[in-house]
């Protein structure tokens, strides 16, 4: 049970970071990025390849994020001055280009090509040794701090919106369950538990940072661009530069998510970076509500809860082949998205009032 929760938390947190990057670009700035996985690919491969050269992970991962942001700069400089749909088309192309480059013969000596990379360093991996009791206690304490802080924020939010109280309570209860399971796993330490702690902590830091940015005058300009870019332009804001920053920062965040993704899957293949991942990020952002960071995190949790539940053993007792089940799972996601678009087009946490507004 606690292994299952750790896996779920780890996957959801990684995808939440990934989704937060897209949410900055699409949800707040209105940039159509259909190649989000490209940033993740660059982040993942950079981190892993650098760590193979002996670069410490805590340096390699930020460099991965920086290179992903640099990819955003390249894409932005070439397309952001054009009509907005060009960005969508170019990002699709770039994401495939990145993947195909990595698996091409020419780069196989560096990237491992289709054969992938199997053994690389993982963070907080003490094996075969075990961390000391003190270290473990420190980890459990840090985890308590992060989950406690999250619960406290939810509590404050619930107090402010009295009608949302039960939702806040539900969130706090789930945090508590995650905490208990996480703490048990951290106590019986393995590197999965350590990675989960690291991912959740990183997610918390990125979330807090993004919220601060979004609620600053800088974030206001992004939202203005999303609504109608002529207005900030007429009021002296350099719209191009702001869009570029959003694209780069969102890409950098996806690059960081790439490092965690690589550590989670423990061996890296180009096929891990199919366009399906971009689709998943869009699903998560739409599920939770574009332009709502808490919603994105919730969307990632719902997405992974769905994903893992439909991979459990009970599925095998159904009279379908595994291919059929696989196709079926994706169909259901499509169906859920359609239902959401009809019933709650603002997403699970979005504000309905916003949608009834005209331009």
């Amino acid at each position: 049970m606690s292994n299952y929760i750790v896996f779920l938390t780890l996957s959801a947190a990684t995808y939440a970071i990934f989704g937060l990057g897209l949410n900055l670009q699409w949800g707040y700035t209105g940039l159509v990025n259909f190649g989000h996985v490209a940033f993740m690919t660059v982040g993942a491969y950079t981190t892993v390849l650098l760590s193979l050269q002996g670069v410490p992970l805590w340096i390699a991962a930020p460099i991965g994020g920086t290179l992903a942001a640099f990819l955003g700069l390249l894409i932005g400089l070439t397309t952001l001055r054009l009509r907005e749909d060009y960005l969508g088309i170019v990002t699709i192309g770039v994401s495939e280009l990145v993947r195909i480059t990595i698996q091409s013969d020419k780069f196989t000596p560096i990237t491992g090509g289709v054969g992938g990379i199997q053994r690389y360093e993982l963070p907080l991996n003490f094996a075969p040794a075990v961390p000391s009791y003190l270290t473990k206690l420190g980890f459990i304490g840090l985890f308590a701090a992060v989950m406690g802080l999250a619960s406290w924020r939810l509590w404050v939010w619930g107090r402010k919106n009295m009608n949302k109280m039960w939702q806040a309570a539900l969130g706090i209860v789930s945090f508590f369950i995650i905490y208990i399971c996480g703490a048990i796993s951290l106590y019986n330490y393995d590197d999965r538990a350590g990675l989960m702690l690291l991912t959740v902590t990183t997610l918390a830091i990125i979330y807090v940072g993004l919220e601060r940015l979004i609620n600053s005058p800088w974030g206001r300009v992004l939202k203005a661009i999303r609504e109608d870019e002529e207005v900030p332009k007429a009021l002296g804001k350099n719209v191009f530069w702001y869009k570029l920053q959003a694209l780069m920062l969102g890409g950098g965040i996806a690059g960081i998510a790439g490092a965690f993704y690589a550590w989670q899957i423990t061996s890296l293949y180009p096929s891990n970076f199919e366009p399906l991942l971009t689709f998943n990020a869009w699903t998560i952002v739409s599920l939770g509500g574009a332009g709502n960071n808490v919603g994105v995190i919730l969307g990632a949790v719902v997405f992974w809860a769905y994903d893992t539940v439909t991979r459990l053993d009970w599925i095998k007792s159904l009279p379908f082949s595994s291919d059929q089940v696989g196709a079926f799972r994706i169909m259901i996601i499509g169906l859920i998205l359609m239902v959401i678009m009809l019933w709650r087009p603002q997403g699970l946490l979005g504000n309905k009032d916003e949608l009834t507004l005209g331009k």
Partner: protein
Amino acid sequence: MTDLLRAENLCKSFGSIKAVNQASITVPAGSITGLIGPNGAGKTTFFNLLSNFIVPDQGQVMFNGQPIQQLPPHRIARLGMVRTFQVAKALSRLSVLENMLLGAQDQIGEKMWQAWMPQVAKDQKQLKEKAMTILTDIGMDHKAADFAGGLSGGQRKLLEMGRALMSDPKLILLDEPAAGVNPRLIDDICGHIQRWRKDGMSFLVIEHNMDVIMSLCDRVWVLAEGSNLVDGPPAKVQNDPQVLEAYLGS
């Protein structure tokens, strides 16, 4: 008076339509200058050329003694010339107050790396007070917390003007500020424009409502089919046979 804005021989064609053809204008500092003309005369296009939202085919624009036709629109706005839109553009999913705050220039925290600075909150508080003062002036203070997308057409026009004022501009280009605004409020707005002018701001106003033009403007320029027809004091322009013909003929 020195010229705050001087545009000479601006031209812009859309395909075979010469929307603006060799049009010129001067706006003296501290003035309220009017720009009138029949529908389709090219007034809005002329504004777009002045602010470089549309790049002119040819012509010069000087603002505050500096050539600006090479500058991107946001740089022109930062120099102190802010335009508004004929079809008012509200930022729907931002509150009215947020719309106003967007207008302020050089805010602390407008740059990404400043978002964490402690001065941001103080700066924003001051700007909010300023925004509320302007909103009160234009009779919109009770709407401050509402989404701008819920405003009526007339309220959007007012919001647009207020937002432009937030930037402390030297010159505001108003494209039909009175269109769709109720008559009593039009009088109020005219009063405020006069007052803002006394504070040192200048205005270039496109308007079909002749009462507004007559009561506000020091000088009026008439555009017809993309070219200058006449210009002069409002009383003179109003009775000019050429102007009457242009309006009746269209």
